[in-house]
């Protein structure tokens, strides 16, 4: 990798929770960066150039070198800027964090998102699956301030969408996934997360998210 001192850029889309994770990761580590908004429905040549493989955001560009995939970017940030670590320092704890981070993406996110994009039996199953996965996360959360302990860590950032985006999805899809009475640990964690100085005031507006996801639900339902 050539070092060329071109700084750090983050190419993203305003409502993408994958982009938000990386933004907050960089804020928590005090990394200065330039944010470049990309319209993912009308991709610019820049995005095709820096992420020819998947064409998705976020893409981090560090010293001219592009890197896609939010969880991979977060690990990279931790390795290059080692202060304020997001992942635990102990190898076993780190393995646990990596597992739960993947679980948050592949199980929690996928099932919750499917409930927005579907109806009827498919939606019912998606909601049931999402609740089941949240039960695992509730246990894992264990009543601590954050998944990372006293400070926000890698798993908190990967689960972050649950705190501010899932409630919007539930409203759009007219479903209940995270019932606070059934998930007291996650309910408390949600408040801790959105109240954190790095997160508060840097969240997309609720009504804008609602309009956007309502539109996406309509598009997906038409495809079924």
């Amino acid at each position, binding site marked *: 990798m050539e070092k060329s001192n071109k700084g750090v850029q983050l190419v993203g889309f305003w409502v993408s929770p994958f982009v938000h994770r990386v933004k907050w990761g960089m804020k928590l580590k005090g990394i200065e960066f330039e944010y470049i908004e990309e319209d993912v429905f009308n991709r610019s040549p820049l995005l095709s150039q820096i992420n020819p493989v998947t064409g998705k955001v976020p893409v981090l560009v560090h010293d001219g070198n592009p890197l*896609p995939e939010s969880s*991979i970017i977060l690990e*990279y940030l931790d*390795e290059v800027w080692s202060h304020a670590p997001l992942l635990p320092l102990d190898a*076993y704890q780190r393995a646990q964090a990596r597992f739960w981070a*993947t679980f948050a993406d592949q199980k929690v996110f996928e099932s919750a998102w499917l409930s927005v994009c579907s109806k009827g039996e498919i939606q019912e199953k998606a909601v049931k699956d999402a609740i089941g996965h949240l039960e695992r996360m509730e246990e894992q959360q264990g009543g601590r301030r954050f998944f990372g302990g006293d400070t926000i860590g890698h798993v908190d950032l990967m689960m972050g969408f649950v705190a501010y985006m899932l409630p919007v999805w539930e409203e759009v899809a007219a479903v209940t996934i995270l019932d606070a009475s059934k998930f007291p640990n996650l309910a408390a964690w949600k408040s801790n997360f959105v109240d954190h100085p790095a997160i508060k005031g840097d969240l997309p507006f609720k009504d804008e998210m609602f309009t956007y996801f309502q539109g996406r639900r309509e598009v997906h339902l038409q495809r079924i």
Partner: protein
Amino acid sequence: MSEVKLFGAWFSPYVKRVEMALNLKGVEYEYIEEDLKNKSPLFLQYNPITKLVPVLVHNGKPIFESTVILEYIDETWEGPSIFPKDPYDRAMSRFWAKFVEDKCSDPLWKACWAAGEEREKAKKEAEEALKILENEIKGKKFFGGDNIGLVDYVANYIAFWIPLLQDVVGFHILTQDKFPNIWKWCYELCNDSFVKKNLPEKEKVSSGLKRAVETGSLY
């Protein structure tokens, strides 16, 4: 003196990649073959979450998911590296490993087992991803360069299992004609003296796959 156990299944590519990593580092471990149709209480105690193999247990502490285990092995034991040292190269290895798992292995597997429209859809997805992979391996012996690296470990599935499965079901997506660079890499990987020792017997895997096609059950 550390105690290492590995719960596995002899035919699993996910287990084999972990065994390969442990052998690369010269780690002594106890291998426990798990009957996936009848999982042992001990196994379920260590992995109540996914209930899948492989599960590595180091000094009584369980770790699951093959790629998480590979990272743990590389961080914990000295010896030849699985991951590159440079952070950017390491991140790109992780990216390509994820691409191989999600975009290549999955649809290739699905296409072999599915029928009709579902098969065609999976075939199209697999072919698009393989075109990208074909370009990535161009001019290299292994994805890791001169030596095998993380991506080669994770793509073991494509190199060894997929060609056997394709022959069993009679449906070929990955061919030498269409993907000559990947095909060459498959040969290099499966014939590498170290990797060869960490693969199951071809005939045994083929018979197992034939049985699975006949019975409709993988285990």
